[in-house]
């Protein structure tokens, strides 16, 4: 028992060392967390207004001791494949340092194996896209050791949409019209003024 345990710990340490050399890859992570989010499949949430409620816990089918190194959990809003198409700045890479799938942080909380939830208001800088939620489990060195997500491994089910704010404001629209009018009026005003001056001097 002790031999299995110590070799297990040794392999974890070794893989951590290996990970720090090459960067943690997503394929090396175990999906030990069960994550659910409040939005239904296909639901549209409004940026700045609507909320997402997350609940998560450790998947009990895994052997005890799996979560011995788990320290914190970091939840991110991640792009579904539909929103990654033609957008290389959101591409999925196995090396987590280069991966751009998940760009919006929801919350970071200390790890507990059950009874967890969090409610988050969708921030105003989240773009219009199709999303799912993923939680990375970090050890005390802030390295990813496991994960959980609301969708399946092909990222097909249980996706939801967020509609961002437009960033437009009535005050901005009005300012835009006013300054534009000023510009055009000064141009034509000047033109007519010069024409009048020229006519006046020609009349002399």
């Amino acid at each position: 028992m002790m031999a299995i345990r110590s070799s297990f710990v040794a392999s974890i340490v070794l893989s951590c060392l290996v990970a720090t050399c090459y960067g943690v890859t997503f394929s090396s992570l175990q999906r030990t967390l069960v994550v659910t989010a409040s939005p239904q499949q296909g639901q549209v949430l409004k940026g700045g207004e609507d909320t997402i409620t997350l609940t998560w816990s450790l998947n009990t089918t895994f052997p005890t001791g799996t979560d011995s190194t788990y320290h914190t959990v970091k939840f991110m809003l991640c792009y579904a494949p539909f929103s990654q198409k033609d957008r290389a700045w959101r591409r999925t890479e196995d090396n987590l340092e280069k991966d751009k799938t998940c760009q919006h942080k929801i919350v970071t909380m200390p790890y507990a194996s059950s009874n967890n939830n969090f409610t988050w208001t969708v921030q105003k800088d989240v773009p219009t896209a199709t999303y799912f939620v993923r939680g990375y489990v970090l050890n005390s060195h802030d390295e990813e050791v496991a994960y959980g997500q609301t969708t399946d491994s092909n990222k097909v089910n249980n996706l939801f949409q967020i509609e961002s704010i437009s960033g437009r404001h009535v005050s901005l629209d009005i300012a835009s019209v006013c300054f534009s009018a000023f510009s055009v009026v000064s141009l034509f005003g000047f033109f007519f003024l010069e024409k009048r001056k020229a006519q006046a001097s020609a009349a002399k």
Partner: protein
Amino acid sequence: MADHISTFSISHNEPTQTNNYKFDLPVDSEHKAKTLKILSFAQPHMRSFHLAWISFFTCFISTFAAAPLVPIIRDTLDLTRSDIGNAGVASVSGSIFSRLVMGVICDLVGPRYGCAVLNLLTAPVVFSIAFVSSAEGYLVVRFMIGFSLATFVSCQYWTSIMFNSSIIGTVNGVAGGWGDMGGGVTQLLMPFLFHIIKVSGATPFTAWRIAFFIPGFLHIIIGVMVLTMGQDMPDGNLSALQKKGDVAKDKFSKVLKHAVTNYRTWVFFLLYGFSMGVELCINNVIAEYFYDRFNLKLHTAGIIAATFGMANFFARPLGGYASDIAARKFGMRGRLWILWIVQTLGGVFCIWLGRASTLPIAITSMILFSIGAQAACGATYGIIPFVSRRSLGIISGLTGAGGNFGGGLIQLIFFSTTKFSTATGLTYMGIMAVACTIPVAFIHFPQWGSMFIPGSKNGKYTEESYYSSEWNEEEKEKGLHHGSLKFAENSRSERGKRQEIESAVTPPGYATPEHV
């Protein structure tokens, strides 16, 4: 007259003429200035110089203002790769047409109105970014802001009218280079404005819209300044001079005909596409290239992109200056050789950039490439004022349009496809630039020669015969060609030192006194 401190003065070695009491700088028979006093704002020459380059600078800022903010704009408007690429091509395509129109406008109503109208009408378009909420809207706005790049033509036309031909390479180079620098400055200015506005409390998707208001204000300010402080020609404004009869009013069809039938116009249309066109294209792709290929932070890639544009501060004037220096000894032939050398070198360094696989080499080759391409732009406009006097505006405009056309075409062929990488695209672009610079050898002036053929030795072809050939007998009877004759006389410097003795003799039939 107060003595101005000049840290940058270029003068052509000629027996000094009596200073016309009206002017702050020494002038020639057309009242064009023979020196450039950078720190002066005196009417009319230096003030026009500063108004010209600043108005062009402002337009470069707003045309490329979106580029460094693309990461935030693409999230606001849900843009795809092709949306972004198309908007980039659109931003430089609009001015293909507007540069032609501006050339005509300058020939007909003067550079001051051309410049001011464009700035004051671009301001509303820039402000309209507040309303954009889709990829289509974004493309249309960038396309229309791009029209403002036509101020390049009014800028170069204005300086060509105000400054003597012996220093025109340098003057056009400085004005053009400092204007082009706007493309680099904007890569630093817009993120800075965005950051400040965000810190003041605005959400990101609103902050970038507010940031665009600053270039809009700049347009209004410079437009009003041009109208109130600018002057078309050394002796006054064009409409006033035309009414007085000092300057002849020309017919558009004639001006167009002489531009279009001059083969040199089309050679320059092609050539400029591979100096300025390359530069415009790079302004749109370089930040992303460094970001992707060398995994830099977007911030760092932006600084490198800015470096490329800012090199214009000295690189383009350097090209113009080299052109002028070569002209002193070798005349027009020297100018043509300088153009060929720097533009080919630019292409070679571009090939090197495409093949660079380490960051230090990439940055080195990019800097050398930028110097080559931008100096080539300066050298081109050291020659353009001599191609025609009657149709200077349209030819200036056509060449400028060629630059934009080349830029859009290059971006479409090499940087909008997934068939090969951006690095390979850069290599191919460099090869094409080298190949398309060869036509410089075909530019031949009968009175001055070309790269491989000397000018006419026995006085068979002269400056006067070249420039008056643009007018027919009827027009010559009316004396409409006198402006061209004056210019011809002043352009004799393009013969270079070796032929100075021949040039001292005024050809028979052209009674223009050489010295006052």
